[in-house]
């Protein structure tokens, strides 16, 4: 293992990005409520600034692993950090959403200090997952995220929060424990805990299936995939707004990131062998959860089910095992992180005014809240995948990618876009158009400055990603190429290879012509 002691910037930026929120979280516990909010916002903004610096100094097309840090201080495992383009983009998503989450929680009055501390710890652990280069460090960060989320849902959640918190915790814990045993076995076999080394180690294909399933159980619950998605609607509905944003925006991506970082490069044969397991579950999710979303009466539940459907697009794209599919899956993850986060914020805006999430209580908000309706419409369209928004780019690439792998999967997955349009448009129509169904709904004031500050940056990012996705795809391209090159040997052959066409007569002519000359 060769490690860079000092990275390109000359200071350990990744450790610093983890240290700032950690210290801020501890500080939050010892100051008053007002100060805690300021400290939390300051720390997250500082992390955002460092994130931008990270992105700016990341060399596109340079080394696969950059900003590496290595300190073997834990005996069996090490404090090994480092990022590639894929991790970079997810880190950017996290640091971008965190200040927004803190700002969205400005109105929380209950136990503010603990709340801010919990959120800052969530940030540390999320970033840690994306940065970790040691498999056990990854596991620690991956699992530890449960603790602050458990507290966030349980303390600041809605009426049924305790049930939701338990379900969230135990479901995800049960999913991921077997992964640890698989990791131990892999470390035994490969003789290293260093993720980049494990990513190029060829495990015995017979063992790969078991390892794949152990990891799959964990990531599928986290993502979540049908049928282990049932914790998500409960957790979302009960969590406070910012909790939902961070849950949908980043925590669900941990599953997708796990697939890209572990399942695909480490178990390519098994990924190919279990193609239909993944695709089958994903397609059920696309169609079934979309239909479920269609009949929801609760706004948050509807968006939660739509998350399951969108995350199914991620798995479909990733397990197509080709360049377009994987890039598409990554873009869907980024786009969904922004869009679903924004949608939960939109729900939060009206929830703060009406204290109900029931769709039937609203209606006609476009009349009294035009700015709100505009934002809501934009995010609705992005969720559907309208060209020009981030949703389109990702879903389109996924469909292209999976068509090469299997045309039937592409066919069924496409219906998901139609179903997605139905439930999202229905939601928007019932909330924004027509006349208000209740008096309170007609009286709601439009967005405050703070709410503008929450939604406008996300809207800008959604449009940026929709119009010029290259900014986001460029850092990932080489890493995806490396991944595709590694898994090529196992990639599904596909059933719809279209040959470059030419009229038979013309072809014959050409042949003649060539012969004649």
């Amino acid at each position, binding site marked *: 293992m060769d490690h860079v002691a000092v990275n390109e910037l000359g200071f350990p930026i990744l450790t610093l990005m983890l240290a700032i929120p950690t210290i801020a979280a501890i500080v939050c516990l010892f100051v008053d409520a007002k100060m805690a909010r300021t400290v939390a916002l300051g720390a997250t903004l500082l992390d955002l600034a460092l994130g931008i610096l990270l992105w700016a100094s990341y060399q596109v097309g340079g080394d696969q692993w950059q900003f590496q840090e290595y300190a073997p201080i834990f*005996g*069996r495992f090490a404090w090994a950090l480092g990022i590639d383009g894929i991790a970079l983009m997810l880190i950017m998503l996290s640091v971008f959403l965190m200040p927004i989450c803190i700002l969205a929680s400005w109105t929380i009055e209950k136990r503010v200090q603990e709340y801010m501390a919990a959120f800052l710890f969530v940030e540390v652990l999320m970033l840690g997952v994306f940065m970790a280069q040691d498999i056990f460090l990854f596991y620690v960060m991956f699992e530890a995220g449960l603790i602050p989320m458990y507290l966030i849902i349980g303390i600041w959640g809605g009426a049924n929060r305790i049930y939701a918190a*338990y379900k969230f915790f135990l479901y995800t814990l049960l999913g991921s424990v077997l992964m640890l045993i698989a990791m131990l076995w892999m470390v*035994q076999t490969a003789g290293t805990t260093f993720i980049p080394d494990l990513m190029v*180690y060829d495990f015995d294909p017979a063992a790969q299936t078991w390892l794949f399933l152990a990891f799959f159980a964990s990531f599928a619950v986290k993502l979540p995939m049908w049928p282990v998605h049932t914790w998500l609607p409960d957790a979302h509905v009960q969590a406070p707004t910012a909790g939902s944003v961070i849950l949908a925006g980043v925590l669900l991506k941990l599953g997708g990131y796990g697939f890209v970082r572990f399942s695909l490069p480490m178990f390519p044969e098994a990924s190919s062998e279990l193609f239909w397991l993944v695709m089958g579950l994903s397609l059920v999710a696309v169609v079934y959860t979309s239909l479920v979303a269609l009949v929801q009466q609760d706004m948050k539940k509807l968006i939660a089910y739509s998350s399951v459907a969108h995350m199914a697009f991620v798995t479909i794209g990733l397990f197509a095992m080709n360049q377009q599919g994987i890039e598409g899956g990554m873009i869907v993850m980024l786009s969904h992180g922004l869009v679903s986060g924004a949608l939960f914020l939109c729900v939060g805006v009206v929830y703060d005014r009406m204290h109900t999430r029931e769709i039937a209580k609203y209606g006609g908000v476009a009349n009294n809240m035009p700015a709100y309706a505009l934002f809501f419409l934009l995010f609705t369209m992005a969720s559907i995948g309208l060209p020009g928004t981030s949703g389109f780019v990702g879903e389109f690439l996924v469909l292209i990618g999976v068509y090469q792998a299997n045309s039937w999967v592409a066919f069924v997955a496409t219906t998901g876009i139609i179903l997605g349009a139905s439930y999202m448009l229905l939601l928007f129509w019932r909330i924004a158009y027509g006349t208000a169904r209740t008096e309170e709904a007609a009286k709601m004031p439009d967005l405050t400055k703070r709410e503008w500050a929450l939604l406008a940056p996300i809207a800008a990012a959604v449009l940026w990603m929709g119009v010029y996705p290259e900014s986001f795809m460029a850092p990932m391209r080489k890493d995806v190429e490396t991944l595709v090159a590694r898994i090529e040997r196992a990639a599904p052959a596909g059933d719809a290879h279209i040959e470059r066409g030419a009229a038979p007569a013309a072809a014959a002519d050409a042949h003649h012509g060539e012969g004649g000359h």
Partner: protein
Amino acid sequence: MTFWETIQAIGPEVILAVGATDLLLLTAFSKNPNVIRTISLISVLLLLAASAALLGPASHAGNLFHGQFRADAFSAFAKLLIFLASAVAIAMAPGFLKREGEAHGEYPILILFAALGMSVMVSAGDLMMLYVGLELSSLSAYVLASFARRNTRSSEAGLKYFVLGALASGLLLYGISLLYGFTGSTVFEDIAIALATPASEGIELGRLFGIVFVLAGIAFKVSAVPFHMWTPDVYQGAPTPVTAFFASAPKVAAMVLLTRLVIDAMGPATDAWRQIIIFMALASTILGGVAAIGQRNIKRLLAYSSINNVGFALVGLAAAGLAGVASVLIYMTVYVVMTLGSFLVVMRLRGADGEQLESIDSLSGLARSRPGLALAMMTFMFSLAGIPFFFGFYPKLMVFDAAVQADLAWLAAVAIATSVIGAFYYIKIVKIMYFDEGGPELTTEKEPVASGLIALTALAVSPLGYLAIPYLETATTEAAASIVQSGPVVPAAPQTLASGH
């Protein structure tokens, strides 16, 4: 070896034996009602002195008294743990006993005798030595359980502990006699040699029975299922500092004793004892998890938690080998810290009138009334559950790692799945402290010693604990090497790490 060298090698035991006997005289003749404070202080100092004595030949003198007593790194590691846990159990008690009206000087002395017994147990290289140490510590423990004489629950606990303990001692003695009869020796090394020699079917069967009975007797001491029945009742009835003591030092001693016995004496019969250990491990993790869910008393809950944790340590023991033995030591080290911490928090739960609160409901809203205490308790609970980030994850990782190395990945997989059952009640405690409101009014009395110990233990199992890994790993590996290599037979071949990557 000269006489002086021998005395040095058994230095810790000598210090404890002489010190405890002298203190007994002091307390018997003292008229001072506050004598318990003095005696506690001296006892803690004696334990620290005994720990310091481990630095000398006591940790590497090897076999003494014709192999009856082993002064090696393995026993030294265990003794250090036992002495420190005993010291904490003494330090936490005076205030409590005073409030109960039982502030007698015998309390620290009994713990000293128990520590002496345990110290002999972990050094035993002979079945008789083992039995003598076990009985010395057990007899002290029976008295300690009923230390609050006027409390019926405490008396009940003492009686139950004694009756069931006597039964277990009987089983153990019967097993020892069988082993002696069918192997011809009580010295571990000779037993191992005998077990390695094939014998006729009848003799093999007799040996197997011997192993089963010995293991059953010791399983009672570590409170592994199915010999756990006494644990919840005794833990609930005994005075809280005594319960804290029971859950820590004797557990370590019994587990270490079991480890030495199966690795050293029964190494050649690994297949025979491994299935017993595996059964006890899984039964303990499952029962310790399931039975705890319905508990309403925090001490009973912690009793089941200790059963659950012993199960995980046994997973490491089932793995055997260097990694397995080291993982047991790591597990017990971290377990002791977590358990002592939890009991220290329980002791701080006193109502406005100073009465001890033991129902789980009395933790309600602790996060509001006592944020620091709640944070510490949360640290212990998540640690006991083995949720990563808190240090309790690390010993579980090591235990499972050992199991995977010994080709027992299935055992690790089943055991880790059962840990989710346990997680349920640990997070329930967190829920009660953090999500629920209300709860009783708590006393505001300051207790600097207890608070300091809570902070210390909480910091040790907080993520800061990860920094201790290299030291812990070196120490436990060295300790494990001292018995695994000296053992006559290499246990089930562990997979070697593939090199060259």
